[in-house]
């Protein structure tokens, strides 16, 4: 207690936010002294101060104010929100840190402010282009699909490259869940979609070792820390939001087919050419080609003739009159039939508030996303309760509880079963194919030629749904043993139950489950359980004003268990019953797998006068995924920062508000993906004659060990001109060593590979983030920020120096091959090199790349017309030279407009779809894109993109080659947001504390070098038949009571 001396007076006051709501917990301190107080729940404070003292009023997220008392005994202060929040508090590993004192590398997104209006079922996509050093890729535009996040490149070949996801302080289950992915290749069910984006307050991404090393073995690929909302001081607040998004069309063209006449001419040319090139006359060739069409399309009610017999003569299409439908002049538009206007709808209701002992936030939300694909739907209903209660001054008990149910159905993002609608509508189904038989008007059930089926009929013959029920309950107990010593224990129970249901009717064409099995039904239940107990002890004290010490020690144990059950039935009695109960043959399976981890960890932080910062951490992890001799690993980090602004020689420079330098070095680890990778196993289930059967399935190295990454980071943070311009620049270098690799071994051993710790990868890059308030006054604010990341990912070492070829895992359709080679980009495309078309005869030209002059020289290099003589070479990488985002906001009174651009410069994109729709006659049973037809060689179009159409088994177009490799650069207006907030004077009249309407447009503009389909591709840079992204227009309303 301070003694009140003669000059001191008692001061009382009230602190409110910009809208007049009282703010609690605001620090009010007397400048130049240690004397301070804080506001209560009504925003009131009192303290003693010199009558001429100046009070400093500061609150997280608000701009600090200095108020000179000038003898006043009561004051009233309105704090303005600090959008720049240069010194915000960030959530970091096992606690929080002031940004100014943080020595590591991390980026934070204020989700509530920047991204909440974006219509996404899971938060990842809304982060696109907002965080330097972080790439967010989503392969599919289907509702509920999984995104990948890559923090600072690619650090592993065989183990995971996914970051660790931490929600409210505890790691959670992430990624794709359930079994649908193995039943229908290429589909995903994103468990992160069980977190309602509206519940998210902020997201921090930890990037370097200093920031993430405390998470040890799981953090080599960065950490995504999600903080959900909590109650704010004040009276109970009720928020309601509703929004409706419509997606009437795609963001770009996607392999648009040629028109009907173009298709039939192309078809005609293939067969005409086939005959003439094999010695037949034009007349014979014409007769043959017309005959081919008449057989093929005649059964669909069309007949064909031609104006002449030449290769390029016009084919005349007529409808037949011998059926119930005359299709003369009418064609079926499959794109129109299979895609609809998508509708995204979400309603969120939350109640929150806080007193000085209790904080609570509770929400309920309902979201539906009916995708563009007419069978694809996602539905979520969920609620959250975050509550904390002070039991005494020293003890606080809190629980975060999240309960969510997702329902996802109509997966069709695969080509394996011929149910992919993009693929069907743009490559397999001619406009001459109709869903009905022209003769009878009944459903057309036979396979169309080219493996395509009538989706409108067969969609009724199968169904697939995934239901995900997730509960995360994380109670915690915090005890302040001493003012400077705090203990905290969290127990988290994360349980996701995924139920996948798959049904094929006895009419379905599925290879094993449809007609041949007389119908099948499958029920998969996969239960993911993650239990974590984490206990930490934290000591934080400032000595003699100058030295601040922060020590942390902790213990953590984690148990992961996946419990799998499966039942199936085939030989179904009736198409009305879709249950295993009714099946003639039943099959079942059930077992569980998992892994456990135990850790101890510590961290020490020291700073001197908030100017010099030092930090170190050490963690020891033991994990069951490794053998007894190698399962324990040590991970550490060291870091330092220097806040120059606090130096006296810098303090004078008024234009510089912040200048901080920082550096760190440390290690992280990555575990094998496989739970039992170090064990040589025999597996059962190879039943024969209705009896059990077993096989040796793996041959393993029992001394398998951690992958280790060593990361160096150096950076600067600055703020200039009253923080009107601010930014960060960082450089990092990450060496990932002892990488696990599936080393190919001689197949004669009976195995194809064994897991070994052999590879090394280096990632390095520079990340720049710049922001500024161009205009800032009472009525108008214009701010902008841009971020750019430069990244290089190289393979530095491989087993025995030997190259390794591997396939893009996306979609399960072997769309492109990559090569790991020492010194090359981690993702290096490996394919034949296309040299273009010979203008004189329309033949394809290939570079041989075999060190010879080939059959002839082209552009001074050995070349050939035969694709089989072209060797595969490395031809580039999907890793861009630079990527990032550009965001700008305008605010005028209640209006605000925000633009969010994302871009990629450099890197290549492999267009696998064009192998199907832009080849030269190989797939003669399929339709072509308009660009393939318009750009193929003819005598009139000699300088063409593609060769002459050929009827002679040309493999050029379908070969994976640079013919389908494009510059991946693009710029996309990812989001545009326009909103209007009613002035509080108006809203209060209708009893609302806040009322706001908004519009959000997603993917409205795209500029790209690649024109045929959507340039926003997955991390492997490949585009195939996955559902593309749409343009979404969202309108919403939010009100608060």
């Amino acid at each position, binding site marked *: 207690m301070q003694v009140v001396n003669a000059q001191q007076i008692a001061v009382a006051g009230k602190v409110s936010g910009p809208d007049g709501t009282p703010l609690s917990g605001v620090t009010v301190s007397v400048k130049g002294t240690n004397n301070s107080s804080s506001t209560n729940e009504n925003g009131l404070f009192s303290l003693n101060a010199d009558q001429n003292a100046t009070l400093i009023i500061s609150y997280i997220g608000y701009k600090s104010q200095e108020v000179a008392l000038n003898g006043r005994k009561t004051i009233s202060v309105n704090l303005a929100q600090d959008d720049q929040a240069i010194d915000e508090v960030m959530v970091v590993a096992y606690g929080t840190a002031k940004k100014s004192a943080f020595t590591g590398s991390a980026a934070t997104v204020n989700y509530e402010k920047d991204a909440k209006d974006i219509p996404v079922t899971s938060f990842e996509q809304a982060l696109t282009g907002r965080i330097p050093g972080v790439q967010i890729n989503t392969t599919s535009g289907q509702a509920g699909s999984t995104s990948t996040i890559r923090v600072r490149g690619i650090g592993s070949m065989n183990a995971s490259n996914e970051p660790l996801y931490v929600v409210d302080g505890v790691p959670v289950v992430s990624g794709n869940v359930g079994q649908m992915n193995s039943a229908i290749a290429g589909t995903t069910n994103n468990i992160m979609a069980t977190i309602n984006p509206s519940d998210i307050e902020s997201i921090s991404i930890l990037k370097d070792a200093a920031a993430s090393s405390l998470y040890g073995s799981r953090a080599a690929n960065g950490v995504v820390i999600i903080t959900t909302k909590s109650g704010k001081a004040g009276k109970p607040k009720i928020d309601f939001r509703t929004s409706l998004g419509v997606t009437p069309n795609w963001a770009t063209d996607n392999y648009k087919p040629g028109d009907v006449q173009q298709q039939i001419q192309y078809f005609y040319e293939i067969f005409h050419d086939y005959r003439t090139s094999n010695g037949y006359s034009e007349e014979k060739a014409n007769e043959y080609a017309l005959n081919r069409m008449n057989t093929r399309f005649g059964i669909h009610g069309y007949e064909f003739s031609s104006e002449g017999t030449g290769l390029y003569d016009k084919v005349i299409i007529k409808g037949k009159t011998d059926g119930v439908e005359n299709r003369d002049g009418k064609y079926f538009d499959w794109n129109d039939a299979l895609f609809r206007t998508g509708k995204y709808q979400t309603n969120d209701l939350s109640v929150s508030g806080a007193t000085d002992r209790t904080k609570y936030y509770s929400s309920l939300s309902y979201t539906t996303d009916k995708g563009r694909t007419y069978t694809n739907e996602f539905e979520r209903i969920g609620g959250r309760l975050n509550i904390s209660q002070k039991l005494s001054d020293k003890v606080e008990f809190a629980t975060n509880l999240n309960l969510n149910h997702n329902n996802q159905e109509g997966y069709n993002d695969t080509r394996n079963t011929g149910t992919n609608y993009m693929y069907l509508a743009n490559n397999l189904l001619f406009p001459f194919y109709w869903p009905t038989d022209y003769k009878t008007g009944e459903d057309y059930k036979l396979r169309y030629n080219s493996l395509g089926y009538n989706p409108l009929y067969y969609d009724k013959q199968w169904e697939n749904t995934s239901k995900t029920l997730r509960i995360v309950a994380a109670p915690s107990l915090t005890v302040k043993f001493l003012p400077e010593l705090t203990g905290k224990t969290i127990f988290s129970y994360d349980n996701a139950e995924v139920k996948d249901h798959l049904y094929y009717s006895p009419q379905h064409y599925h290879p094993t489950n449809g007609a041949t099995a007389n119908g099948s039904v499958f029920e998969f239940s996969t239960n993911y359980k993650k239990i974590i107990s984490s206990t930490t002890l934290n000591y934080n004290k400032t000595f003699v004003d100058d030295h601040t010490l922060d020590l942390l020690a902790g213990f953590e144990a984690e148990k992961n268990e996946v419990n799998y059950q499966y039942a199936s039935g085939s030989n179904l009695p009736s198409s009305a019953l879709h249950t295993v109960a009714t099946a003639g043959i039943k099959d079942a399976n059930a077992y569980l797998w998992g892994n456990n981890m135990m850790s101890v960890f510590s961290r020490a932080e020291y700073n001197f006068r908030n100017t010099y910062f030092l930090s170190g951490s050490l963690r020891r992890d033991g994990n069951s995924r490794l053998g007894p001799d190698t399962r324990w690993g040590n991970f550490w980090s060291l870091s330092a920062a220097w806040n120059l602004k606090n130096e006296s020689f810098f303090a004078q420079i008024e234009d510089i508000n912040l200048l901080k330098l920082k550096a760190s070095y440390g290690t992280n680890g990555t575990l094998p993906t496989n739970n039992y990778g170090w064990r040589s196993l025999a597996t059962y289930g190879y039943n024969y004659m209705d009896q059990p059967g077993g096989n040796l399935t793996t041959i393993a190295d029992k001394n398998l060990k951690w992958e280790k990454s060593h990361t160096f980071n150096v950076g600067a943070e600055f703020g200039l001109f009253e923080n009107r311009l601010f930014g960060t620049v960082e450089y990092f270098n990450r060496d990932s060593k002892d990488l696990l690799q599936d080393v190919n*071994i001689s197949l*004669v051993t009976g195995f194809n590979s064994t897991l070994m710790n052999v590879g090394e990868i280096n990632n390095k890059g520079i990340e720049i983030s710049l922001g500024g308030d161009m205009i800032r006054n009472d009525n108008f604010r214009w701010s902008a920020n841009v971020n750019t990341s430069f990244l290089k990912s190289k393979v530095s070492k491989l087993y025995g120096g030997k190259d390794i070829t591997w396939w893009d895992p996306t979609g399960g359709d072997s769309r492109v091959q990559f090569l790991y080679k020492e010194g090359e980009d981690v993702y290096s495309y490996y394919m034949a090199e296309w040299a273009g078309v010979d203008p004189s005869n329309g033949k394809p030209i290939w570079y041989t790349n075999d060190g010879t002059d080939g059959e002839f020289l082209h552009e001074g290099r050995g070349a050939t017309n035969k694709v089989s003589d072209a060797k595969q070479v490395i031809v580039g990488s999907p890793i861009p030279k630079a990527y990032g985002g550009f965001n700008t906001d305008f605010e005028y009174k209640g209006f605000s407009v925000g633009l969010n651009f994302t871009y990629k410069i450099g890197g290549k994109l492999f267009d696998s779809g064009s192998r199907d729709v832009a080849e030269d006659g190989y797939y003669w049973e399929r339709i072509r894109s308009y660009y393939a037809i318009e750009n193929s060689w003819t005598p009139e179009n000699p300088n063409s993109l593609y060769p002459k159409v050929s009827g002679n088994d040309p493999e050029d177009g379908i070969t994976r080659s640079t013919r389908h490799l494009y510059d991946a650069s693009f710029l996309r207006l990812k989001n545009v947001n326009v909103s209007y907030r009613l002035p509080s004077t108006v809203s209060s009249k209708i009893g609302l504390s806040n009322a706001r309407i908004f519009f959000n447009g997603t993917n409205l503009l795209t500029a790209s070098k690649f024109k045929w389909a959507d340039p926003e591709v997955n991390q492997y840079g490949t585009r195939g038949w996955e559902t593309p992204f749409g343009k979404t227009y969202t309108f919403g309303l939010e009100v608060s009571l």
Partner: protein
Amino acid sequence: MKKKSLYIIALASLSLFSCKDFLDVKPTDSTDSSVTIQTLADAKVMINGLTRQLAKSSLYGRNLMIYGDAKGGDLTIVSQGRGLDALYVFNHSINNNNYSDFWTDGYNAIMQANNIIKSIDALQAAGTELDFNNFEGQALTLRALLHFELVKLYGKTYTQDPNALGIPVVTELLPTSAQPLRNKVSEVYTQIIADLNAAAPLLAKTKSNGYINYYANRVFLSRVYMTMGDYDKALAASEEIINDKVYSLYSNSEWVPSWASQFGKESIYEITLAKDQGDLGSSSLGFYYLRNKDNNALGNFTASDYFLDRLGQDETDVRWGIFTKDELDRQASCYKYVGSVDKKGDGKDTYTAVNIKVARLSEVYLNAAESALKKASPDKVKAATYLNEIRKRSPDLAAATSTSISEQMILDEKSKELYAEGVRYWDMIRTNKTITFNDEHVGVTMSHREKSINRTFYKTILPIPQVEINANPGLEDQQNPGY
């Protein structure tokens, strides 16, 4: 009180993880690979697992069977791209259509057999009282059979050059570092014969549905000797089966229905398929022979005109009964592997799960006939007798006599009898015949082979897969010529 209970909660949550073996998490569907066989039941489990490997689509489940027919001239295709047509058009190279699964799955199955043999050897060395003989005999026989299939796929046929490169012989469980080189063809055959003969006394001389018995072992031995041109020994092996009369031939009226049942009276080794136990549904062997669009089948393969002419020597041949009209309106779609022309299957729930007949008595008679005809001192009477037992399935054809009998007659009969059973191509290669393909039905030009080929054509054997050479660089210099 309140505080106390909270501390208890905290302690309880900690203690949850303090059990001793927390970091020792074992799989629940697998065991340590070193302890697979302890009991007789274990041995049976591993034999079952091995047989399921044989039933895979890459081996007897489909591709190995189709390989032996698609390349032999009895089949043709109507369109390219329906699947496995590369086998017919010979579009093989190191990287593409190299059918490396033969190599991969073949050696995997050999490894499974070696595990059984080595485990039993170890138990016997330790003085086990259990009688593992039958299981060891089965594993040895299958190891020999797999070596035999692989050496035919990758090495020149024995009678062409026994000193040519064959395949690596593997009789041990190899470590991950092993990089074995190819043995000579003759060395591979030496091991095959040694294994078959070592196995024979261990095996039962009774029927053993779904498993290898003594007679299956002898069928394989006869095939091996015929491939080596040692017809005396081939005849001895075949006659042992015939004379022991455990199996008997189907009568003419039994022949067509025999396809609709399991374990018929002439079936010596069948690999059993069932729903969820190797059934490939519409990817099954049977489906590859269905007529185009029958149950949405693609119509991958149909009989060549040459085969139809051969079977057409007798319009009343009973074997027409398993054929139905193909998309070209010829009686050429073979429904053996769906049980019957109305796809009844062989008595199980799914008609595509028809057991693969790896060895049956008809072949043995024809092998005996050919061996008798070609042995050091030919016995034409015997040859004609054995041939006629099968030839009577064409009632309108005159029986063979000691004067009319010829190799051609026997091979023709074998083509008719064993169509789609994976033997034609090997007969043509082994006896050095020219194979002519019926390319007239497919809509595009054949660019990967001539219309007629013989065993001097380099693509009559497959390339060692590039993926093997990458891991086992010594094989680079041992790649088959031409690739």
